[in-house]
């Protein structure tokens, strides 16, 4: 294919083909195409391209034809979008309020209230009353599962249900917070994360890391291999995040790959569905 016609070089043939030429020029071009073999060949090619592409399938849905995964993923991303704003709101930084979209603003009050209630409840019912109960004993206080050996008899029958409740409450709270961090990391756009955002994510991950490790160890000790596996993956992601400098543009994509590779969000969803402590 070698173009030797000025009309062809100028792109006029495409405009003619796509009916983008004014009437006068169109008639002129029609006359030219009838005489010029280069332009006639180009026009023929365009027709072939149109015909060939018109036979291609019209793809307007995910490969399975099922939108449920897509909608779930979108819901999670929208939820993360809302919760990512919550720390700003809780930190009482009025300068950011004006930039928060309306749908997010409407949830901030709820989130603040929920966070306050959770903190008070956990502080009062768990930390004040059961701080001395060892972690493994707390896990031992609930029914065993996943082929684990029967739980050892609890030391004090009165502490058992409260310890279980407290453990579940704290564990679920921890798990929810961790999940929000993971969702936040997964949905961030590389290159668009500010230094302040990174500092926040890093400190949050560092805070959650030691507890995650304890939960993982406790789950391993109890033979809860699936839960221990999820905790191990979570621990790894939190560790990577807590060590990230925020200056290397490759860091976030690397963490996101890790989340995807380990299917961490899906696993955490499963744990959410069946409950942290069966």
């Amino acid at each position, binding site marked *: *294919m070698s173009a030797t016609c000025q009309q062809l070089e*100028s*792109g006029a043939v*495409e*405009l003619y083909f*796509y009916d*983008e030429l004014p009437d006068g020029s169109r008639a002129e071009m029609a006359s030219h195409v009838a005489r010029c073999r280069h332009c006639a060949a*180009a026009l023929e*090619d*365009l027709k*072939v*391209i*149109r015909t*060939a*592409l018109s*036979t*291609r399938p*019209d*793809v*307007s*849905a*995910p*490969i399975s034809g099922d*939108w449920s995964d*897509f*909608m779930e*993923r*979108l*819901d999670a*991303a*929208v939820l993360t*979008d809302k919760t990512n704003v919550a720390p700003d709101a809780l930190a009482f930084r009025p300068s950011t309020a004006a930039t928060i*979209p*309306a*749908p997010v603003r*409407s*949830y901030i009050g709820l989130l603040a209230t929920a966070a306050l209630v959770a903190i008070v409840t956990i502080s009062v019912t768990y930390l004040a009353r059961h701080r001395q109960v060892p972690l493994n004993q707390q896990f031992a206080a609930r029914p065993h599962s996943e082929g684990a050996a029967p739980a050892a008899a609890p030391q004090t029958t009165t502490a058992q249900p409260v310890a279980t409740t407290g453990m579940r409450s704290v564990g679920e709270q921890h798990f929810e917070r961790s999940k929000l961090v993971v969702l936040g990391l997964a*949905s961030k*756009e*590389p*290159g668009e994360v500010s230094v302040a955002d990174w500092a926040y994510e890093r400190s949050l991950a560092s805070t959650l890391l030691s507890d995650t490790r304890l939960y993982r160890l406790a789950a391993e000790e109890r033979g809860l291999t699936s839960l221990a596996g999820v905790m191990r993956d979570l621990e790894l992601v939190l560790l990577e995040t807590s060590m990230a400098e925020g200056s290397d543009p490759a860091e976030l994509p690397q963490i996101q790959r890790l989340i995807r590779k380990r299917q961490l969000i899906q696993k955490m969803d499963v744990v959410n569905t069946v409950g942290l402590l069966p």
Partner: protein
Amino acid sequence: MTPDTDLISRAAAGDHFAFQTLVERHRSMVYRVAYQFAGNHHDAEDIAQEVFIKVYRSLDRFRQDAQLTSWMYRIAMNACIDHRRRHSPAAAAPFGEEAELKMLNTPEESPGPEETTYAGELGDVLEAEIARLPPGQRLVFIMRHHQDLKLGEIASSLGLAEGTVKRQLHAAVHRLRRALSTANVTAGGGA
């Protein structure tokens, strides 16, 4: 059926169900555009997700007198460009005279037409070549050829001069014709 404008107002006020209904109503259009640009389901899903997240974030900025589909379409086009920019920064330069030249000369890294000819149909060859087009050319070609938008509409939608759009289209067609020519020669002059 509830009008889109009502759904937008409700969604902007925090009604998640209204937002879901909006998504369900327009997801096929968005997915089609994303797939035509990306050429595979994985990236198309990512792009479509990005579109609706951007829509969600911009709900309170939507002008009630504007066309929702046009607005969404424009977001989809920008999401396509952003997606390509993130995954292949060197190839996805922004529009502009200098960048345009760069885009015209920066093919995607994937098998060329010679390698795909034997794989089958002419449509396959052309689709592969469309996937190899620099993002600017690909976008303009898709908008003109698949979406049947006029050059003026494309220019307005992308915020470009019409001359730039014409040049992008011309360059895209030139490359597709070259792929066609190569395919014909390789296939023994058939097609």
